[in-house]
Every structure is written in C-alpha cells, then in structure tokens.
C-alpha cells in the first residue's frame, strides 16, 4: 500500500523541476547542460514514480484510487480532488513515458532558448497528468486549458517556417472548443450543484439539457481528437512543430478528446450519447476513409503521418461509441498503441529531419542502403501503424471492429476499408523514403542512428511487441472501469444486450 500522496507528487514534480531551471545561473553552455540534465532526471523520476504507483494499483477495482482531496473553492462547490482509475492510469503512464523520450529527442536538435524549451515541456507534463487525474470539474478545466499554452509556445517559438500561422490555428481551434466546454461545465454546476466528477458520473441530468451539454463537450473533444471536419489544424501544427512537440501532440493531446468522451460524455450524458451515436459514427467513418485517401497523396512526411493519425483516431471514436466491451477496450487500447506508435513514427521523421532538414518525401530515397538500422526501426513502427497482428496496432483495431460489428455491420464494413487504405499509404511512404537506389548526394551523406537514438527507440519497440503479443497486461486493469461505464450507459438507456438489433 502506498501511503504518501503519490499522485500529487507525480503531477507537481515536473513543475518543481521547471522552477528549479529558472534558478540555474552561469554562462550559456553550462545553463544549457544543466537544464537538460534537470529535465531528464525529473522526468525519469516521475516515470519511475508512476510505474511504482501502477504496481500498487488494484487491477480488479473499477473505483478511483490514490484519491487525494482538499477543500479548495467551496463557494463553487469545488475541491482539489485527484485520483486514477483503470482508464486514466494508462494515460498517466503514457505521459510520463513519452516526456523523457521527448527530452532525449530534443537533446541536440534544439539550439536556441533551451531553458525555456525544457521548462515548457515540464510544465506541459504537469498539465497533462493533472488533466487525466482531475476528479473535479474546475481542476479538469484548468488543466485542460493549461495544456494549451505550453504547446502553443512550443509550436510558435521552436517551430518551422510557418510556425506562427500553425500555432494560432491550433490555438483558435482548441479555444473555440474550450469556451463551449466552460459554458457546459457551468451549466452542469447550475443543474446539479456539484463539480465532483465521480458524483456526476452517476447523476442523471434531464435528457433535454443533456443534448446541449453533449454537443458543447463534443465540439471541444472533437477538435482535440481531431474528428472530421475540424481536423485541418493538425497537419499544419505537426508540420511546423519540433519533433518532440509532434510527439506530445499526437501521443497525448489527441487522446484528451477520447478520454473526455470516455470520462464525461458517456457516463454523465448517457441518453444524449445514445441519441448522437449515428452522428459520431458518420463523422468517424468519413474521417477514416477521407483522411486515408488524403494521406495517400501527401508529399510531406509529417502531413502524411498526421492524416494517418486522424484516420486511426476515427477507429477510437467508433470503438467508444459502439458501447460494447470489445469496442471500448479496443478504443482504449488503440489510443495507447497509437500514442506509442505515432510518437515513434514522428521520432523516426525527426531522425531524418535532423540530418537533412526537409520533410519533403521526394528529397529522400534509398535510406536502407546507408541507414539499415533506421530502416528496420521505421519498418517496425510502420507495420504497427497498419495494424499487423503481433504488434500493438492490431489488437486495438481488431477489438474495435469486433465491437462495432455487433452494433452495425455497415459501420464495420466501411471502417474496415481503412485497413486496406492504411496499408497502401504507409507502404507507399516507406517505399519512397527508405527503398530505392541511393542517388542523391546529400541523402548518401546521412549517418545511421546513434546510441542516443537507439536508446529512444528500444523501449518503444519493446512496448509495441509486448502490447501485441500479450495485451492482457493492459486490457485486464482497464476492464472493470470500462465495464462500469457500459453498465451505467445501459442502465440509463434501459438497454438489454443489443444482439442483432441494428442492420
């Protein structure tokens, strides 16, 4: 049993690290070296703590654990309340894993304002973990918004040529969603008189209001995931963001939308959720097919992977709103798997970008000849991304399809076409970048991945296979919490098992 307030420690240790950096003095070189070390050590300690917390996590319980509560804003019915269940703990782990990897990935590629950069990342980590752990709506909102700022600066300051345009586009889209969410939160408080998320997850709001609330939340989450047609900020943001920014963006930030649907929309607004399922299914199916087609014709590596993200996240929303055991577990699993795989893919892009400073696919070709190790690594993640059995990508996709088939064969059919298109655009990308004759002089001069880069990729590769071959380590702990959401949804909608009820 863990007796100290481990959650708060995990959340605020990065913030402490950031403050520490602020105090570092000396000439520029030593400051740079010191802040890098501080960042790496802090994030690694946080990761170790979160793993330690996971070992003390009761995997058979659906309840929130490690709960900490202090009164905070009694006037608003709000308190400082943190806790994790089988759903959020995995997102915490994902965040704490990816942050040190991001620090490592930025080790040499970030040259200017290193101190500020590292501070932004640590601040970002605090905000992300806080968001996944918050059990109070005010806190949730503060963290949800808090993520936005460091990300905005990471893109806007350390990004590429069109970074300002991309940063503002990202900011405006997400801000639009946030405003609606704030209104919805206030309305919920007005209706129920509490900001406590676990309480609200069991409360029943009037169906009429539910629909409006649902739409307001949906806009906010849909932008984050992103769903079609509010996805166009993502390719721009990715292209301009530095590698580590893309990793966090795709690895964690997109998951905030899926997490929101799981934590808020379904349990708090079950009737409205049921009402809007066709809408979600339609948008998601469009996302899968439309963005896959668009990905096929991209000429920029990062844009292609960004579009593939949208398609992959389409599977997630479909899985969540199938509200079946397999579908929702699949969606959760797909989010975790995607978090690792897409991060690794962006890191792969970062490797070649650091060497050639271009994202244009046509500038590459033949890398297998001078970068064989890199070719292997890239190949593994590409295969995981197209859902090859034995890798993590397969389990999520497969479970989602199994789940949604029980609800609608049409949606399953259309979604499954994404499997074909996914293979096509990824293999086509891989061929153009890695295979072929090595003809270009600047490409020939590129060197294979070094020890630091290997250290980044090895844990991710291990995870991809672990999740693909023995996914039970991940599915079992999340099962009770997901079952709780499903039970709650079915009770509210008085649904017995919907076997074959739909075409």
């Amino acid at each position, binding site marked *: 049993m863990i007796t100290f307030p481990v959650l708060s420690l995990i959340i605020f240790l990065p913030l402490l690290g950031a403050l520490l950096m602020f105090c570092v003095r000396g000439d520029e070189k030593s400051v740079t070296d010191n802040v890098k070390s501080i960042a790496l050590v802090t994030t690694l300690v946080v990761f170790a703590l979160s793993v330690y917390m996971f070992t003390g996590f009761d995997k058979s319980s659906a309840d929130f654990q490690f709960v900490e509560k202090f009164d905070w804003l009694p006037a608003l019915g709000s308190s400082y309340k943190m806790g994790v269940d089988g759903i959020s703990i995995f997102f915490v782990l994902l965040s704490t894993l990816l942050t040190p990897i991001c620090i490592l990935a930025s080790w040499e590629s970030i040259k200017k304002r290193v101190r500020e950069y590292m501070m932004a990342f640590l601040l970002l980590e605090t905000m992300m973990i806080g968001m996944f752990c918050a059990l109070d709506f005010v806190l949730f909102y503060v963290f949800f918004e808090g993520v936005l700022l460091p990300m905005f600066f990471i893109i806007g300051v350390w990004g590429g040529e069109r970074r300002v*345009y991309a940063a503002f586009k990202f900011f405006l889209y997400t801000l639009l969603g946030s405003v609606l969410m704030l209104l919805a939160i206030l309305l919920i408080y007005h209706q129920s008189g509490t900001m406590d998320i676990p309480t609200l997850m069991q409360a029943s709001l009037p169906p009429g209001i539910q629909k409006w609330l649902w739409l307001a939340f949906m806009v906010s989450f849909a932008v984050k995931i992103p769903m079609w047609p509010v996805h166009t900020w993502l390719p721009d943001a990715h292209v301009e963001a530095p590698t580590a920014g893309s990793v966090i963006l795709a690895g964690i930030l997109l998951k905030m939308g899926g997490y929101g649907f799981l934590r808020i929309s379904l349990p708090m607004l079950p009737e409205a959720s049921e009402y809007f399922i066709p809408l979600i299914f339609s948008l998601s199916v469009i996302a899968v097919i439309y963005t896959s087609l668009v990905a096929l014709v991209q000429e920029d590596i990062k844009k292609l992977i960004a579009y593939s993200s949208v398609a992959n996240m389409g599977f997630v929303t479909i899985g969540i709103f199938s509200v079946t055991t397999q579908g929702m577990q699949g969606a959760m699993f797909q989010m975790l798997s995607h978090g690792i795989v897409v991060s690794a893919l962006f890191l792969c892009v970062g490797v070649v970008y650091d060497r050639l400073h271009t994202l244009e696919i046509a500038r590459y070709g033949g890398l297998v000849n001078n970068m064989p190790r890199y070719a292997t690594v890239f190949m593994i993640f590409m295969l995981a991304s197209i859902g090859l059995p034995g890798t993590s990508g397969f389990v999520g996709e497969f479970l989602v399809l199994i789940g949604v088939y029980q609800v609608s064969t*049409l949606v399953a059919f259309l979604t499954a076409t994404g499997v074909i298109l996914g293979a096509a655009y990824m*293999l086509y990308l891989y061929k153009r970048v890695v295979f072929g004759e090595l003809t270009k002089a600047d490409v020939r001069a590129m060197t294979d991945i070094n020890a630091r880069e290997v250290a980044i990729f090895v844990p991710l590769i291990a995870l991809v296979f672990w999740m693909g071959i023995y996914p039970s380590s991940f599915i079992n702990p999340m099962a009770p919490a997901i079952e709780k959401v499903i039970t709650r949804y079915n009770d509210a909608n008085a649904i017995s098992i919907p076997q074959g009820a739909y075409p």
Partner: protein
Amino acid sequence: MEVIAVFSPLLGALIAGLFSKQLGAKGANFVTCAMITLAAVCSLILFKEISLEKVPRTIELFTWISSGALNVSWALRFDQLAAVMVVVVNLISYAVHYYSVDYMRNDDARARFMSYMSLFTFAMLMLVTSDNFVQLFFGWEGVGLMSYLLIGFWNKKESANNAAIKAFVINRIGDFGMVLGIMAVFFVFGTLNYDDVFINVASKKDTVVLFLGHQFNVINLICALLFVGAMGKSAQLGLHTWLSDATECPTPVSALIHAATMVTAGVFMVARMSPLYEYAEPVREFITVLGAMTAFVAATIAMTQFDIKRVIAYSTMSQLGYMFFALGVSAYGAAVFHLFTHAFFKALLFLGAGSVIHAMSGEQDMRKMGGLYRLIPRTYIMMWIGNLALVGVPFFAGYYSKDIILESSYAAHSFVGQFAYWVGIAAAFMTAFYSWRLLFLTFHGKSRVSHHVLENVRESSLDMLAPLYFLAAGAVCAGWWGYDFFVGEYRFDFWGSSLFVLADNDSILHARYVPEWVKLLPTFIGCMGILTAYIFYIKSTSLPEKIAGASGVIYSFLCHKWYFDELYNKIVVVPIFFIGKKLWKIGDEKIIDGIHFSGARVKGIRKK
C-alpha cells in the same frame, strides 16, 4: 516437440537477423539451416505420431486477447490436417533453405535473406497450427508481410518495390473480407475458437442475419467473406494480379511462395473450415466455378508468356484453381492431396528454373535460351521430372492428385461439377502444352543464347542440385505413396475428424464409380498437349508465330494477361489517387479551411 517444430524457424530468424554482424553470412546460413532442419525432423516425427498413429493434440501456450466474451490464446493445434501442412511447409522450406545458401552466395544481404525466409516459414506454421481464427489471421497477415519483404528484397529495383506493395495491398483487400468474416463468426457464435464454432454449426445452419441491410444465411455469409481472404492469398481470379509480378523476387522465394508458405494458405483455410463450408452449398458452387475459371484463365496466359518464371507462376495459379474446385465439390482430401504433391513438383520447377537462370547469368527470357540440355543436363532432367509430375503423366505425383480432383468433380453430379470437369480437362491440355513449350524453348532447338552468356553457362553445384534431387524424389513418389492415405481406402482413418464431409457430398467416394473414360481422358489429353507442343516448337518452329499473327487480337489479349492490370489501374488506382488529391486540395484546403478559418484571418496569421 510441437513447440520446436513451429518455433525453431523463428529462433533461427531472430538470431540470424539480430546478430548478422557478429555471425557473418556463413553463421547466418548455418543457424537458419540448422533450425529448419530441426523443425523438419520434428515435423516428420509428429506426422508419424499424429497422422499414422492418430494422436492429435492441442498445446495452449498463453492467453493472447481476452476481452469480455472474446477469449483467444496462442496455441498449437496439431491434428491430422495441421500435421500434413507442417510437414509440407517444413520439408519444402528445408530444401529451399539449403538451395539458397549457394544461390544467394554473391548477395551482400544474404543474412537478412535467410532470416526472412525462416520468418516466412514461421508465419505459415503459425497459420496452419492455429486453433482459433485470430491466430489464423496472425499467420495470414504474417505470410503477407513476409512476402512483401521478400518480393521487394532487391529493394533498389523500382519494379520489385512496386510488386511488393501490390502483393501486400491486394492481400489486404482479401484480408478485409477475412476480417469481416471473422467478425461475423464472433457475432453469431460468440467465440473464435475452432472447436466451439464447429460444434455449433449444425444448430445455426438456418439462422438468418442482416448484413449491410440485406438478409443472409449466416453460414453462407461467413463462408463467402472468409473466401474473399482465400481469393487474395491464393491468387484466385479477380485478386490474382499480384502473383505474376511477384516473380520479381529471388527465385528461392518464388519456390517458397508457390509451393509451401503462401498461396496454399487459402486452400488450407477452406479445408480447415470444412465444417462450415459443408453447410454453405451456394458458396461452394461459387468456389467451384471460380476455381475452374482460374485454372482455365491462368493456363491460357501461361501459354503466351516468355519469362520462364512467369510461366511457372501462372501454372501455380492454374493448379490452385484445381484445388479450389476440388474444395468446391467437397473433395477436401483431394484438394489437400494436390496441395501436397504440387508443393514438391512446383518447388522443384522453380528451383530448377533458378538453376537455369543461374547458368544463364540472370537471363529469364526463354527467347534467349534454347539448346541448353547438353550444357546443364542435370537441371534438364530435374525439369523433366517436375513437368511430368505437373502434367500428370502416369505414376508421377500429379497424376494421382489431379485425376482424383477431376474424377471427384465429375462424380459430384452437379452442373458446376460437370463444368469444372470439362474446364479442368481443357486446362489440362494447356498445362501439358505450356510445360513442354517451356522445356523445348529452354533446352531444345537452336541455341539463341548470346555469345558471352554462353561462355559462362555452367551446371549448378551439388549444393544447389541436392535439394532438387530431394524434391524430385518427392515429385516421383508423393503420389503413389499418399494416394491411399489422402483419398484412398484409409482416408477416414488418416484424416480423423480434421476434415468434415456430409455423407451426401462425399464426391471422393463417388469418384470410384465414374465411367472409365472419365479417368482416362486427363492422361490422354495431357499427351495430346505434349504432342502439340512438340509440333509447335520442334517440328515446325514457324507455326507459333503464324498462329499468333493470325489470331492477333486474341493473342495480344492473352499476352497482356486478359488486361486485368490495365483495367484495375484505370478503374481503381488512378481514381483513388485522383479523389485523394481532390479531397486534399479542395475538401481540406478550400472548403474546410475556407469556412473555419476565414473568420480568423486577422493580420499576422495570414497563410503564407
């Protein structure tokens, strides 16, 4: 024992792949060959225990996916059918491994090559020993991946890369059907384990479900969807275009793909699902017709090709057609029997062709060969044996297996059975023709070999020939040895419960009572085909050109493989890229960004 038979190729692949630097090429060769030998020996012992002494078993390794009612494990199911397949896969792979050592000796990446081949074998072994649909799919996609990597092995070549992508994507189209089929199985039966599904088939045979808004009988629906997967993997008409392009790969890989580890997966899958397919009469009728047409179309194309490997590749497709229409008339034993014999002689033919190509310094065009029999006599004899077995000359392997297929389809007493029989006869004629056309063009007649190639023509070393002798022994003996077990009097004992046939559908049984001429006709027609080839390519060598010239349109139609590639390119590939481009440029950039972002175009953030 079971674990060793399946996992030793994986171990070999991992060692050779991960430590290629430390081991060097020699070490990698040694490790992979040793491991595959071990697997082959184990599989022979298992075959003896399981098939001949009848002790099938299933070994569960550990849980794979467990989600709600869905519960599947990694498992090795060794029943009679799996035992046969494991023997085929391991033996052929064993021969191909040894052959590759010498064949690839000048390639820098041969450690990687050997590693891929072992991994390919492993994927196929997982496929055939699965005891649930998900692991089947694991192997199914696994062989797809490995074929992608091996077809594109020479990854500097643009054509090889394109062929590899084509193979993978077309297979994925098949897998798309397969996945839907698996989902339908889970939806209807609530489980994905073979035994639990097969037990309940009879009770569900009249159930009707909705699929895409239409009513379907569940068994028909499941079988049809699964069959789409088989079409892709086994290159049946419609999803076959990847197979001939796949000859871009190094020749040993072709042998592996065509004989053991890839295209046979579809045949195996349908045989494995015989408890389902038995209750899906309409689907089996469709399979019969499609199989027959595949046999026919592929044979017509094979007659016009000049690339030695493409001829053999189309012959594979044609032979797969035979296997499928055997499945269609419920002659599962006959189909697997043909799979078994075909594995030996097709591997022999491909490795023999590899030996020819090797001698010819890489030339594959038969128009630039001729008169080689004196220069490479051993290879020549091996190719004769392979072709004799393929055509079904009496007492060679193909004679037994192809004839039982044709007799069964005749004996099925259905319209589609009759159709398959006669189309099969026509294809048999063409098979004989193109096989001897290949022999005559390559080995006989005047030499058309260019001068500097001729100087280097040398018989292959014993290292390469020994695997050929081994396979030739199989091509001679597999038929008469296996006949009684696979389709003859001991067949019920031999198969146990691994194949399921409804009593009314037992066409192999009825095949005993067909008229004598039905049995003799295939052999007769085969000899006619050989004779025709003799007239065309030895007697009056101007005849082929005259006929090609006289039948201009038909000839170019066949030459262009019925224009499947051109058609698909026009109606699928080009439009998809076009739509993608439009969605991106107009959908995303004009419409969506136009609407959402026009309001936000304040100064300073205008799009550059």
